[in-house]
């Protein structure tokens, strides 16, 4: 098929049938594989838009220089009482590769065990591979109960 050949060639019966079969086969395959491809792609689940959670443990259960993981909707969060006695909360998902961080009492800051990432008590990434600080949550104490909410 040289350039321009195909347009000048007469349409023979064979070429017409070939074209018809090819187009039908293409259409058929598209009709089968398009739904399958769309099906395999997971639908967007509206993130259970949790803006605020009341923790299952009381403020008294968190001594100073100590951290605890809590459920913030479907994601883990970490509550820390600083050596100074202040309560702070962050997302516990390391910004590097999504591991869950922990509080290191010996270092008095937050640490990710997967690739040795360090965050200070403001959530800032201070050492190791994490590229960004941890998301910071607001902490409020109401009658011994801790309420953690997204910082607006």
């Amino acid at each position, binding site marked *: *098929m*040289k350039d321009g050949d195909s347009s000048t060639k007469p349409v023979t019966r064979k070429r017409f049938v070939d074209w018809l079969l090819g187009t039908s086969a293409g259409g058929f395959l598209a009709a089968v594989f398009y*739904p*399958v491809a*769309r*099906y*395999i*792609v*997971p*639908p967007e*689940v509206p993130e259970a838009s949790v803006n605020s959670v009341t923790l299952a443990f009381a403020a008294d259960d968190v001594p100073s220089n100590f951290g605890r993981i809590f459920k913030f909707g479907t994601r883990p969060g970490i509550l820390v009482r600083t050596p100074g006695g202040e309560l702070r909360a962050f997302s516990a998902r390391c910004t590097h590769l999504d591991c869950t961080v922990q509080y290191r009492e010996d270092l008095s800051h937050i640490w990710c065990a997967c690739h040795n990432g360090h965050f200070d008590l403001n959530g800032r990434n201070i050492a190791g591979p994490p590229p960004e600080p941890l998301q910071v949550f607001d902490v409020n104490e109401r009658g011994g109960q801790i309420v953690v909410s997204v910082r607006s």
Partner: protein
Amino acid sequence: MTDGTGPGSRARGAIGRFASWLDDRIGLSAIMPVLRKKEVPVHRHSFWYYIGGMALFLFLLQIATGILLLFYYRPSAEGAYESIQFLMAEVEFGWLIRSIHSWGANLMIFMAFVHMFSVMLLKAYRAPREITWITGVGLLFVSMGLGFTGYLLPWNELSFFATRVGTEIPGVVPVVGPFIRDVLRGGEDVSGATLTRFYALHVSVLPALAFMLVALHVLLVQRHGMSVPPSIEAEGGPRRSMKFFPQFLLRDLVGWLAALAMLAAAAAFFPAHLGEKADPFAPAPAGIQPEWYFMFMFQTLRYLPAEIMGIEGELVGVGAFGVVGIVLLFVPFLDKPKGPDAKPGKLWTWLTFGALAYILLFSYLGYTFDPNA
């Protein structure tokens, strides 16, 4: 493409070289002479040769859609119903995949029944095709098992109670019955344990079994070729035939496309239902019924009196269907001409029509049955 020097022909040359390179290593071209030699008899009953192929196509389609359903399905009493709800409501084309799987199961079993009855009436199970028949009947049983186990997986009210009834039936068999029932249920009651069990059977054990049987069945069909019915053999005269490749295969393909079109239409216009979530502590709703291919048996059990000659009625019914199942497996050995030149008897033809009439009548009665009357 006609001048032989364009880019098209160069591409073809490359493909040809790759094909011959590949063939030197795997030797698939040895199949071609076999395919070319294979012939399919042509006569007025040839139509029935296509039904088995349609059942095979539907089986493959069930595997494909079944694998897709596994992407979203969660096999637990807590999550199964919700995962299907999510699949039907949120996943793009989820309704389509599930509806095709659900309708495809029904159509496959329907085709398997049609195929079996046509083989019986055309006596295609005669020597040397006894094992082909046995694997075919085995496939029908496995398909019904797949239907029964798959019915429970959405964990809705209807399937929950149908499974309770269905698993209670083997419980009437003396001595081993309750044991079989508990093994089927994974406990004394239908629960989450039953669901995981049925799930394991439905997605691994039974498909593996079906796959082996299909392989053996198709291999034997290739080995022996299509059976020519005795009535056509008796007529004598010149035998007509057509090439398997590509003539018969292309006609087969038409049957497959027809099956796919039927499924697409059924799925689009009558998508599979989900119903209410199963609640083990709720009373059974009215209108509990099994899938249509179990209906004639279900209806028979309804009519049986509590006792028949001192034996529990249900036991007589279950025993009778068990015997029929075993007889069905051995039909090729039971239907033997008396002498070498004897004509094949009409007995089995009449028995086949009788069974067909029984199934149709009792299914009809099952669907029109009024429990309040």
